[in-house]
């Protein structure tokens, strides 16, 4: 690509190619882009007393983050080596190193998805997280309801409303449907546990007024009712008890432990925002390198600038991660 032309004596501007200058300017804009995210994260975090940091709240895996840092650094290293090889006109070597880089970025995304999977399976998603006891209890009942609903639909109970399905469930148990019977009975038992819990949760005002007052009020309202004030701890115990019950095995996989995390949603929002946009940049980098790799043996000196500039970009992606790692995983 670089056809020779006599360098004019009066060449104005910087002694670097346009493409490189453009790339650096672009990186400048990228810095501002991530500044907005990271800056917002920092100030939001400082402004939120009790930001979740414990592993049981955030399910952050430091090891995964550290390994990923290593993976990115290694891939960055391969990029510089590849660029060096290009300079030495050793194109096959360069190709090979870039292939390593590509592989490593796949690995990075793999580890990232593993982490995401962990988050998702614990339901650490924006607006999914209960931030106080009440929301946690509500979430449990909501999830139990979903389980009941889905199970009933799966077992062939027709009808839209839960009530209809319940009637169908009772009928099915009455019909004694062979092998399904135990399943049906388990479901029915589960359902009645859910009904009790949800009624309990609905009538439960213990969380919003001082308990002494609640007691007196409740006595006045429903004398003789067996409902006791519901606490998060109570619900946890209750779930533990149910989970131990062989009968319900399997039904509980959908229900998460009630676990309020103040500012959990904001945490999840910032976490996914930053890592998500970082991952997007990784993917773009992979496309840039993929285009080089597609040249196969046709790779030649003409790609040198391309590799240098995508390399710059890649190091920037690495840089962002270098900051994200301590900020998200450690501090």
């Amino acid at each position, binding site marked *: 690509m670089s056809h020779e032309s006599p360098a004019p004596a009066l060449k104005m501007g910087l002694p670097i190619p346009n493409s490189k200058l453009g790339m650096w300017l672009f990186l400048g804009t990228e810095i501002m882009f991530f500044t*907005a995210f990271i800056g917002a994260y920092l100030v939001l975090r400082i402004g939120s007393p009790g930001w979740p940091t414990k592993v049981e709240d955030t399910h952050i895996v430091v090891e995964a983050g550290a390994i990923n840092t290593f993976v990115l650094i290694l891939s960055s290293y391969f990029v510089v080596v590849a660029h060096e090889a290009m300079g030495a006109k050793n194109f096959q070597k360069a190709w090979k190193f870039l292939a390593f880089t590509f592989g490593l970025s796949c690995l990075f995304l793999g580890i990232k998805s593993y982490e995401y999977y962990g988050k998702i399976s614990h339901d650490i998603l924006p607006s999914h997280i209960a931030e106080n006891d009440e929301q946690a209890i509500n979430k449990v009942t909501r999830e139990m309801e979903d389980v009941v609903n889905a199970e009933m639909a799966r077992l062939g109970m027709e009808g839209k409303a839960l009530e209809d399905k319940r009637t169908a469930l009772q009928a099915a148990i009455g019909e004694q449907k062979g092998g399904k019977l135990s399943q049906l009975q388990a479901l029915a038992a589960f359902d009645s546990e859910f009904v009790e819990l949800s009624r309990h949760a609905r009538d439960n005002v213990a969380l919003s007024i001082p308990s002494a007052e609640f007691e007196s009020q409740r006595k006045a309202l429903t004398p003789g009712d067996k409902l006791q004030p519901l606490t998060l701890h109570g619900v946890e115990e209750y779930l533990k008890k149910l989970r131990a019950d062989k009968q319900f095995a399997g039904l509980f996989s959908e229900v998460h432990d009630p676990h309020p995390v103040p500012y959990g949603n904001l945490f999840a929002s910032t976490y996914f925002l930053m890592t998500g946009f970082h991952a997007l940049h990784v993917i773009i980098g992979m496309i840039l390198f993929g285009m080089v790799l597609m040249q196969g043996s046709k790779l030649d000196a003409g790609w040198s600038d391309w590799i240098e500039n995508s390399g710059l970009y890649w190091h920037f992606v690495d840089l962002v991660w270098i900051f994200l790692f301590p900020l998200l995983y450690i501090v």
Partner: protein
Amino acid sequence: MSTINPASTPNALAHAVHGEAAHHELSFVRKYIFSTDHKMIGIQFLITTLLMLMVGGALALAVRWQLAYPWKTMPIVGELLFAQQGGQITPEFYTMLFTMHATVMIFLVVIPVLAGAYGNFCIPLMIGADDMAFPTLNMLSYWFMWPAIACFGTSFFVGGGPASGWTSYPLLADLYEAAPGSGWAQNFWLLGVTFIGFSSMMGSINYLTTIINMRAPGMTLFRMPMTIWGMFITAILQAFALPVLTAAGFMQVGDRLFGTVFFIPSGVVVNNAAPTIGGGQPLLWQHLFWFYSHPAVYIMLLPAMGMVSDMLATMCRKPLFGYKPMVYAMAAIAGLGFIVWGHHMFTSGMNPALGMTFMISTMMIALPSAIKTFNWIGTIWGGNIRFNTVFLNCVAFVSMFIVGGLSGIFMAAVPTDIYFHDTYFIVAHFHYVLFGATLFGVFGAIVYWFPKMFGRMMNEKLGKLHFVLTFIGFNGTFFPMHMLGIAGMPRRYADPYLHPYLEHLQPMNLIMTWFAILMGVAQFVLLANFAYSMFLGPKCGRNPWDANSLEWSAPSPPGHGNFDIPPVIYRGPYEFSSPLSGDKDFLMQTEPPVTDNVNDTPPEPDDTA
């Protein structure tokens, strides 16, 4: 896939001559639609933005209609558009009107007309390059405007239109329940802003690279015309400020679509919906938004300042007064522009100490503006003025900018801003700077560079008519807004007269509306002049204005590759009426130091190059 070899680029001749020879006639599509030629892209931007000006103006007139005749059937369009409401503007519709008016005017008119149209057209021509550094990126930057237009267009029709003003403050903009009906419209609006952001981003990186690296031999930084300086500094502003808006936009999209809670505090009950779970803070958006949008107001001004400086010097036949101070002033405006954004938030519940800091920096930004203003007046002083359309528009620019800038001082002072914030005083201020300054500058630029764009002159009579009508209409519409503001009329009110203390202002609003209609009519003169002159205007030579800068040494319109002789620059752009220039009163930047009897026609292209 390497890049343009930098070594070859300044050598425009090699390119131009070889290029022209080996050049095939481009197909219509490649030449006029998917063109990578910066001049064509510039013209595309210009025509698109002029059309958008009509759209934005029509929306403004609808706003004005409601303010003059609240709840009266809109003439003509009323029955067409919303017959079911008896042709009335509903409050929701009114909100959408001013939101889209501002969106169209800012994102689809002023920013693209300055950076997109004139940035593209002028930069390579004025620094002596054959094209932009990245022509394909340049083409993309134009074509990314269309998805944005499509998105903004769509947001008119899905739901009730975006309903939170161009500032899009959460939670009104963040929660579906807060503005029922605006639902997807707001999402499309955000998408549109993102697209226009990409477009500007590509443009600014391109401009920066081009200006830094592709100047012709001899074109040192301090020989660049002010237009280039304006574009350069604007591009810097854009490159650093815009990503923040894009980021904030993504955060708002996240809040709206993916359940994130950046701007949503907990426990907020909107429109009887369940309390939000939240955890975020609404003020964060305001900070991030204004971090971009304050620099953006200078993005909407600096290129016009640059162009006006050039035009004034040319029409006064006089060197620009204080070239270097002008450059430094621009840089200072840009630098300070980054640290004043908080002045939009004085009453928002921000930390008062922060408010003080922002107040002081805002006050300071008037300084470089002062330098600019006085230098313009200094430029006119003692000039041999050509009172043509270009000059008149430029003087209007200066005069209107003073008014707009001075009203800014009232708002920069926090205590008075407590009263003026979100009243029509603000509306008066920014129309004076945005329309009064920037658009008058653009009207001047249209006439000034028209010969270079199309090889024909625009009609002077029509041009002056347009100018006078617009000037009168403009002041008639917007000057009284200061009074409305002092009288305490809040902005974004569909029906201010509901409030007894504003009732008596209706006649005034009525007069303003008629002035606005006059101004609208005036724009047809511009359109007519533009269309007529494009095909029928008198042909002109290379340098119809006897100007100095490089673009006037190229043919009108310049061919592919711009220059038929490789420009070499020997002096600054403002050597008008120099004692060295002999009989003429100008010395082009390309003229070699010895200046005996050199005339305007350039030497024949040298084939040996």
